[in-house]
C-alpha cells in the first residue's frame, strides 16, 4: 500500500513538476504571438482575424485607408511600412525581425530564396487563379484556415470563419426580407485614365461574397487571370436591368468619363437608379475584415436604395 502510495506520490510529484515546468511555456506560446510580416494586404487581414497585429505591412499608408482597418490599433502596435507590395524592401523586412513572412506567388516567388533566408515564408495564390474555375472565396477561407493551423490558432480561425458566415447570413436575411427574390448584380471596377470597364466573373472574390448575400451575378465572361473581364462601354448595354456596383478611384476614370455620355443616362440600371458608385476604401480582395466591411457597406446601400 505504502509503496504504491509512494509511487503514486512520486508520479504525481513528477507530473506536477512537469506540468508546472511546461505550463508557463504553453502559456507563453499563446500570449506572445509570432511576429508576422504581410507583403500583401489580405494576409495582414488574416493575421488580424487571428488576433495578431503584423509587425510589418507592405504599402502600409494605403492599407491604413481601408474601411476595415482601425488606424489607431496599428499605429499603437508600431506596425512598420515594408515598401511596395511588388518589390518590398528586404532591409525593412529584416529590421522588422519577423518569425513568419506572408506573400503572394505572382509577386514574391522571385525573391523567395531571399525571404526564406530571413525567416519562414509562405506564398499564396491570392486572386491569381488563372482561367480556372476555382472559387476565390473558398481559396481565401482555406488560406486563413491553413494559416491558423500553422501558427496553432485553428480555433481562432474557425471562430473568424464562423463569424463571417454568421455575418453574411444575417446581411442576406436583411436583404431577403426587403427584396424577397434575389437581385441581379454586376460588380465592376472603373480603371483610371482609360475608357474600359472591368466586370468581375462569378468565381471572383467580390462576386462570391455578393452571392452569399443572396445576390445573383449577371456577368458571364471569361476571366483574364485575376477574376475579371475587361470590356468596352458598349458591352454595358447588354447587361440589362441589373444592380450595378462600380468602384471608381480618383478624378479621372472610366466612370467619370462615361457619366458625361447621354447614353449612360439611358442605361437601364442608371435610369432605374440601380447604379452604385463605390470607392476603393471598401476593398473586396482582402481577408475576413475586408469582406465584412465590403458586404456590410453593400447591404446598407441596397437597404437604403
Amino acid at each position: 500500500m505504502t509503496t504504491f502510495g509512494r509511487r503514486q506520490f512520486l508520479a504525481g510529484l513528477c507530473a506536477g513538476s512537469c506540468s508546472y515546468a511546461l505550463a508557463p511555456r504553453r502559456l507563453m506560446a499563446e500570449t506572445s504571438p509570432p511576429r508576422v510580416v504581410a507583403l500583401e494586404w489580405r494576409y495582414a487581414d488574416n493575421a488580424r482575424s487571428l488576433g495578431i497585429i503584423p509587425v510589418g505591412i507592405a504599402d502600409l499608408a494605403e492599407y491604413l485607408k481601408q474601411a476595415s482597418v482601425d488606424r489607431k490599433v496599428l499605429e499603437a502596435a508600431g506596425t512598420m511600412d515594408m515598401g511596395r507590395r511588388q518589390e518590398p524592401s528586404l532591409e525593412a523586412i529584416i529590421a522588422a525581425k519577423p518569425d513568419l513572412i506572408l506573400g503572394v506567388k505572382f509577386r514574391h516567388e522571385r525573391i523567395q530564396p531571399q525571404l526564406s533566408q530571413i525567416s519562414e515564408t509562405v506564398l499564396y495564390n491570392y486572386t491569381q487563379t488563372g482561367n480556372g474555375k476555382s472559387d476565390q472565396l473558398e481559396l481565401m477561407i482555406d488560406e486563413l484556415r491553413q494559416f491558423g493551423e500553422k501558427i496553432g490558432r485553428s480555433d481562432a480561425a474557425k471562430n473568424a470563419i464562423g463569424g463571417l458566415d454568421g455575418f453574411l447570413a444575417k446581411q442576406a436575411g436583411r436583404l431577403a426580407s426587403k427584396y424577397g427574390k434575389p437581385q441581379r448584380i454586376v460588380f465592376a471596377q472603373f480603371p483610371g485614365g482609360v475608357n474600359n470597364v472591368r466586370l468581375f466573373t462569378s468565381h471572383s472574390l467580390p462576386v462570391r461574397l455578393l452571392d452569399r448575400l443572396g445576390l445573383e451575378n449577371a456577368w458571364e465572361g471569361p476571366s483574364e487571370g485575376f477574376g475579371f473581364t475587361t470590356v468596352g462601354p458598349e458591352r454595358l448595354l447588354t447587361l440589362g436591368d441589373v444592380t450595378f456596383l462600380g468602384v471608381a478611384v480618383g478624378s479621372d476614370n472610366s466612370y467619370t468619363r462615361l457619366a458625361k455620355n447621354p447614353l449612360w443616362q439611358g442605361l437601364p440600371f442608371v435610369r432605374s437608379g440601380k447604379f452604385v458608385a463605390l470607392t476603393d476604401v471598401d476593398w473586396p480582395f482582402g481577408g475576413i475584415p475586408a469582406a465584412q466591411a465590403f458586404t456590410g457597406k453593400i447591404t446598407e446601400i441596397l437597404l437604403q436604395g
Partner: protein
Amino acid sequence: MSISSSDEERFAWRAAMIAACVGIALGLVYLHAAAGIDGSISTILNSIFSAQVNDPAGMMLHYLRLPRTLAAILTGACLATAGTLFQAATRNPLASPGILGVTAGAQLFVALVAVVPAFALIVPHTLAATMGGLVAGGITWLVSGGSGAGPVRIALSGMAVSLMAGAAAAALALLDETSGASLNLWGGGSLVQTDWSASVGALIGFLPAFLVTLIFARQLDILLLGDDTARMLGQNLLLVRGVALGLGVWLSALAVTLAGPVVFVGLVAPNLLRLAGVSRHILVLPLAALVGIALTVGADLLVLLLSASTIELPVGVPIALVGAPVLVMLAWSQARESRATSEFAGRYRTPSAFPIVSSSVFLIMLLITAGLIGLVSGNRLMSPSEVSAFLRGAAPVDLHQILEWRALRVTGAALGGALLGLSGLLLQGVIRNPLASPELIGITQTSGLFAVVVLLLFPEFGFLGVQAGAIAGGLGAAVLVAGLGLRQYLAPSAMALIGLGLAAFTASASTAFVIVAGFQASQAATWLAGSTYGVSAKDLIVLAVALFCLIPVAYFLLSVTDMLGFGRQKASSLGLNVQVTEWAHLLIGALCASVVAATFGPVSFVGLMAPHAARLLNPGRYRDLLAASVIIGAALMMIADCLGRTLFAPVEIPVGLMTAIIGAPFILFVLRRA
C-alpha cells in the same frame, strides 16, 4: 508617243492606287461602324448628328461607336501625316512619332497628371498628352540642334528623350500602384471613346494642320533632294523644316491624346507608299493618311470583333504585328539606299584637366566612395562603426544580413556598370557617333523583349532560360544591326538608324506582350525596368567572369579603334581588316550589354554616359579611355542604385529608371557640346 503612253500608264496606275486606297479605307470604316450592330448605311449616317432616341442601335451608334470610329480615322490620319512629315524633314525613312520622343513625352505628362495632384492643377487632363508630346518634341528638336541637324542626330536625340520620359513615367507608376495600374492599360493604346468631345477636338486640330502640310507639299519634295540642292533652289530650310517638324509633333500629340501610344502607323503608312513608287508629297500626304486610316480602323475592327467573344486587346498589338515586317523590309531597303552622312565623334579638344596620376587617384577614390556610400545608405542609414563592424565580421545577425545584401547589390551594380561602360566605349568606337550606346541601337531593348518572351512562353526553362534568352536577344540585335548596316558603301551611322528602328519596335513589343499576358501593372513595370533587386551571389559570379574575360579582349580591340575613326578606306590602307574589326567591336559590345540585361533587365544611359565622362576627364585614344570608362560606369551605376534604394525608402526605384533620370541632364550637356 512612247513617252505619252508611259505617262498614261503611270496615270492609270496612280488612279487605280488612289481608288484602291479610298475604297479600302471607306470599306473598313463602314465595317468598323457597323460591327456587332444591325445598322444600315442610312442608320449610320443619320446617327452621326443626332441619336434616334427610341432605337438602341442608333443610341449606341451615336454615343459610343461613331466617336470611336472617328477616333480611329483621326488617329490613323494624324499618325500617317506626322510620320510623312518627320521622314521628309529628317530625310530618314525610319523617323516616326515613337522615335522622336513625342509618344513617351505624352505618356509622361499623362502619368504626372494622374499621380501628382499639383501637376493636375497646371495641366488639365484633356491637354496632358498634347502638351507632353509638344514639350518632348520641342526638347528633341532643341537638343539635336534645331532644324539644321542631320537625320541621325535628330533620331538619336529623340530616342534619348524617349528613354528619359519613359523611365520617369515608369517610376511614377511604381510609386503609386493604384494609378499605375491604369497607366499600364493606357500604355497599350485604346480607341474606346466615351463621348464625342475628344474625337471632335482632334478633328478640329487635324484639319487646319493637314491643309498647311498640303500647302507645303512641294517644299517637302525639294527637301528630299538634300540640303545643298534645296538651298540652291532657294528654299528656306529653317522655315520648311521647322514647319514640318512642328506640325508633325502637333499631329502625333493629337493622336496620342486619342489613342495612347500607337506608334507604328506613322512608320508604316508613308513607307508603304514609297515602296509602291509614290514619291511626290502632294500625293503621298493624302494617300498616306488613307493608308493610316485603313491600318488603324482595320486594327480596331479586329479589336472590336475579338472583344465581342474573348478579350479586349490593346489596339497597339495588331498594329505592331503589321509594323514588324514592314520595319524589317525598311531596314533592308534603307541599308541598300542610305546615303546618310557619317557623324564622327567630335574629339574633345579640352586640354587635359588632370595628369594621368591625379586622374587615376581620382578614379579610385570615386570607386571607393561610391561603394561606401552605397553600403551605408538604404532603408536605414548605417553609421561608420556599424559598417566597420560588418567588414570585420563582428556585426549582429540582422545587421550582418542587411549589410551583406547591400554589399551584394553594390557589387552587382559596380560589375554591371563596368560592363555597360565597356559596351558603350566599343559601340561608340565602331559607330563613330557620340550617341551610340547599347540602348540607342536596340541591344538592351531586344534583350529585354527576349527575356519577357521566354518568361511568358517557356516558364519551364526558369531563370537560366530567361538569361540565355536575353543574351541571345542582345547578340541577335547586334547581328541584325551589323548585318544590315555594315556594308562597304554605307556610312556607319546607317547602323544607328537601323538600331533605332529596332529599339523602338522591341520596346513597344515587350510592353504589348506584358499587357496581353495580364501581368499586374507593378509586376510588369518591374520587368521592364532594370533592377538590382534580389540579385544573388550566382549572378555576381556571372557578371564578374564576363567582365574579367571581356576586358582583355576589349583592350586588344581598342588598340585599333582609333584607326576606324579615320574612315574605312584609310583604315584598310593602313592594313586593318575593317570588316572583322567592326564586327568584333559590335559583338563584344553587345555581349557586355546583354549580360547585364540578362541579370538586371534593361539599364540605359550608363553605357552612353561613361565613355563621355571618361573623355571629359582625360581625352585620349580609345585604349586610354578603357579604365576610366569601366570605373566611371561602375561608379555611376552604384550611385544610381544607391539613390533608387534610398530616396523613397522603403519604396525602391529600380536602378534602370534612376540611370535614365540622372542621365537626362548629362546627355543634354554632351549634345550641346558636340
